[in-house]
């Protein structure tokens, strides 16, 4: 007979179940992701595909800590103020366990500072700025991508080998271009005493007056040019320079120009023989890359861009950290992240305990043109750990606590 007591007990059990169940074994672990999707769609659409692939693979393999993972993604509008707001929303309303993502350096730095204030793990996926792990580094922030300094340093051996005396420099006038230029001048001067930097052009991002800039560089009669242009600026620079014959007999180094995001639009205009950092996706034969490439192409019927690799590796890093920590406690996550090794499509990377920078590498090579399309030739992989400054230098830059 159904007494009042059993009825109440049953009801209580039901209530208890409905309260406990979502927090129990079945609820997915939420990872908060924010990025400037509408401001930098060329890089971030492939990035999103990359992380969605990673989520699918992780969940197919049973998730982590016995739970599935879910990435809650937000658009930060490319604006640090909005980014801090959506970061707060991800943590306090969505219940995200920690944060990943961001693209431009000012947004990355703002979210890093927010993570420090909130004492939450933040894996900066894409920002290239050196400051995020050095000058402005903090205990809660880890960065995946090969930084501006690292990519610049990768080009230095080739620059030294050429032994050119007169260098001209062109860069987009904001953090990334400024640090690339500073790093390049410092590193090259150290390796090649007597090198001269004959002219410098700082161009507004996205609004280069390519004809005038190319002419000004040529007027300085350089033996070589170092550029950190990308996107529409790069395309305009290449077109004007080639038309005007300015690159004839001049060696050109261009950061990032080998990344499919920026290389593919150039098509038959691709400048032959430029030294670049990039991602020759079709020629990589390592097992970890082949596995990634096959899965990506099967899912999207499209080839991966560098953004895809970054998105994929970000989620793989996040999952590895959760697994190693064995819990979602922030202190345990931070402890786990420090020094963790993760297998990415570019091989094993380590998030270094000293500055929380991953040792993800990049490919260095020259540009070439084949069948009206640009590609990277004579490329080699440079491991990130080989191009970082000494520990003493890093301790000097990074705030103690």
């Amino acid at each position, binding site marked *: 007979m159904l007494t009042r007591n059993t009825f109440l007990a049953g009801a209580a059990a039901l209530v208890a179940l409905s309260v406990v169940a979502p927090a129990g074994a079945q609820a997915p672990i939420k990872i908060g992701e924010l990025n400037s999707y509408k401001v930098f769609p*060329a890089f971030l659409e492939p990035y999103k595909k990359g992380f969605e692939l990673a989520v699918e693979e992780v969940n197919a393999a049973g998730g982590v800590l016995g739970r599935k993972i879910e990435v809650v993604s937000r658009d930060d509008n490319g604006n640090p103020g909005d980014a801090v707001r959506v970061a707060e929303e991800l943590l306090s*309303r969505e219940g995200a366990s920690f944060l990943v993502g961001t693209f431009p350096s000012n947004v990355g730095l703002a979210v890093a500072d927010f993570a420090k204030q909130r004492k939450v793990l933040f894996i900066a996926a894409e920002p290239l700025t050196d400051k995020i792990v050095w000058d402005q580094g903090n205990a809660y922030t880890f960065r995946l991508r090969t930084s501006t300094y690292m990519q610049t340093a990768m080009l230095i051996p080739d620059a030294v080998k050429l032994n050119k005396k007169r260098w001209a420099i062109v860069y987009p006038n904001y*953090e990334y271009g400024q640090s690339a230029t500073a790093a390049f001048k410092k590193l090259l001067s150290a390796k090649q005493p007597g090198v001269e930097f004959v002219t*410098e052009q700082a161009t507004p991002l996205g609004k280069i*007056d390519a004809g005038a800039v190319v*002419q000004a560089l*040529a007027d300085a009669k350089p033996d070589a040019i170092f550029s950190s242009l990308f996107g*529409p600026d790069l395309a305009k620079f290449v077109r*004007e320079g080639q038309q005007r014959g300015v690159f004839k007999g001049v060696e050109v180094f261009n950061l990032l120009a080998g990344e499919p995001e920026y290389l593919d639009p150039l098509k038959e205009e691709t400048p032959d023989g430029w030294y670049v950092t990039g991602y020759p996706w079709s020629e990589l034969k390592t097992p970890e890359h082949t596995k990634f490439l096959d899965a990506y192409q099967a899912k999207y019927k499209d080839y991966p861009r560098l953004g895809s690799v970054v998105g994929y590796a970000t989620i793989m890093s996040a999952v590895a950290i959760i697994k190693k920590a064995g819990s979602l406690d922030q202190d345990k996550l931070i402890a786990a992240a420090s020094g963790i090794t993760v297998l990415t499509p570019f091989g094993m990377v380590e998030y270094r305990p000293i500055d929380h920078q991953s040792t993800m590498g990049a490919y260095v090579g020259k540009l070439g043109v084949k069948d009206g399309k640009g590609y990277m030739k004579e490329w080699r992989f440079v491991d990130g750990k080989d191009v970082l400054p000494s520990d003493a230098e890093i301790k000097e830059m990074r705030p103690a606590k």
Partner: protein
Amino acid sequence: MTFASIIIQLLNGLAAAASLFLVSAGLSLIFGVTRIVNFAHGSLYMLGLYGAYSLIQALGRTPMGFWTSVVLAALAVGLVGVLIEVLILRRIYKAPELFQLLATFAVVLVIKDIALFVWGAEDLVGPRAPGLSTVEILGRRIPTYDLLLIAIGPMVLLAMWLLLTRTRWGALVRAATQDREMVGALGVDQAKLFTSVFFVGAVLAGLGGALQIPREPANLELDLSVIADAFVVTVVGGLGSIGGAFLAAVLIGVAKAFCIGIGTVNWFGAEIVFSKLTLVVEFLIMAIVLVVRPFGLLGKPQAAQRIAADPAPPLTVPSWTFVLIGLALLLVVPIATDRYVTILLTDIFCFALFAVSLHFIMGPAGMVSFGHAAYFGLGAYAAGLLLKRAGLPMEMALVLAPLVAGAFAVVYGWFCVRLSGVYLAMLTLAFAQISWSIVFQWDSFTGGSNGVFGVWPSAWLAGKTTYYYLALAFCGAGIALLWRVLFSPFGYALRAGRDSALRAEAIGIDLRAYQWMAFVLVGALAGLAGAVYAFSKGSISPSTISIAQSTDGLIMVLLGGVETLTGPLAGAAIFTWLRDEVARRTEFWRAVMGLVILAIVLLFPQGLVGGLKALTQRWREARSWEKTV
């Protein structure tokens, strides 16, 4: 610079000026006749580039295919312009001044997402101009196409001049530019005239874009990057003056080329990097031109416009019950809702004060500001720098920041109140952009493009709930102060000046001094909003001073209704909430935002609060009529 490089840079500058001129000529024409600040003009330019790219793919990379594509793309963009005019703008010509800006802003959002959907995210690099190689001038090679562009500029100028002075249509356009009410009274079909003007203006924008295809990859950032330049050229040249636009385009194009050509120089031991000036040179030129010539290079004083809309109704103070209920609700929010609502509301408080301060200056004081973010951003930076660089306690920094922003307003305002109308608005924009570029480049002091970090409130204020109450108190007090001032003699004097400057001065009001004071007051309070905002985010970046921030302010005020007191509050709340909500729910959130704004624009041409007021008014009238019957 050698003689040869001077000549070559001159040619580079002239080539760059050509497209700029075409876009600006279209903008100037549209503004002259319809008085619409067409924010979507840059989007038309962008569509011209995308359209030409696709057409060339279809028609082939031959000279024939290329030029046919350019012309077809321009005409197609013209049709888009007609669509915008017929479907949207025609319905809101009678709305308060500048309201159409809101509609064109929505169009920008929609077109951007359509372009993303149709052409994808990757930049599209067009072909070189087929059949045209390079020529050698003074030992340097120049693309022949650049020389062609240099010729096209004056040709279009000549064609426009003939069209405007030798045809009946041109006579009507000129007449409407001077006095469109009179043209209407004389029996000219205004709707047709406006549509045709929009067509021609849009064709010029499309042509300017399509002609850039060998020089510029089609990409999604073009719309906003070109619109600011086009406004500058239009205003520097003088509104409605096609010749002036040409002169201004050449001036700016050449000035930029020379900044690049000169590069870095050493003067008296100081290193000056001219190439960095390219970030701001057009705004510097605009500021100088406007200070010296208040109506641009070739512009004439604006003819007194008969206002198409009814004069602004007197302001009504919100009732105490309304205010108290609102406040009571806001006070219980942190107890009753989740943490994120307080975060979002803190943002809304900052933007509400920002919008109310903008409303004060553009509504009752009658001085539209396109660069209001200057004070918001400078206040934010002052707060951050006083905390981090001067080492002041956070409470001091928060209180002093508005004074710093106000001090800047003293300087900027002194120049601005000497102008009127769009010229005044553009000078405020020039000052904002100059401030932005200094903040953006002064790495050692302002943190450059990254900004300032670690700007957190003191420990006792750091809790989100505590900070929520602080933001409510400071922003609420700021808003209350501004409203109070509006109903003081000072406020009435400002409104008198807006409605009739002549009569106001006749009764002994020193209008310029009053307007200057108004500038300082709103500057300081926008600065307060910025400071509160900075401490709620923990960091400040140059985007707080950007054009986008200024535009957001305008959108909030217009969305809520410029003729009401509470409009800016509603506008700030709805705009911020909507963006937060829509961005979360859909990938194409910009298009959705744009469509929502368009719907509001078409349904409530007085803004949301204005529209609601009109509705309740009508309902009351209907009821009282029923009673009498």
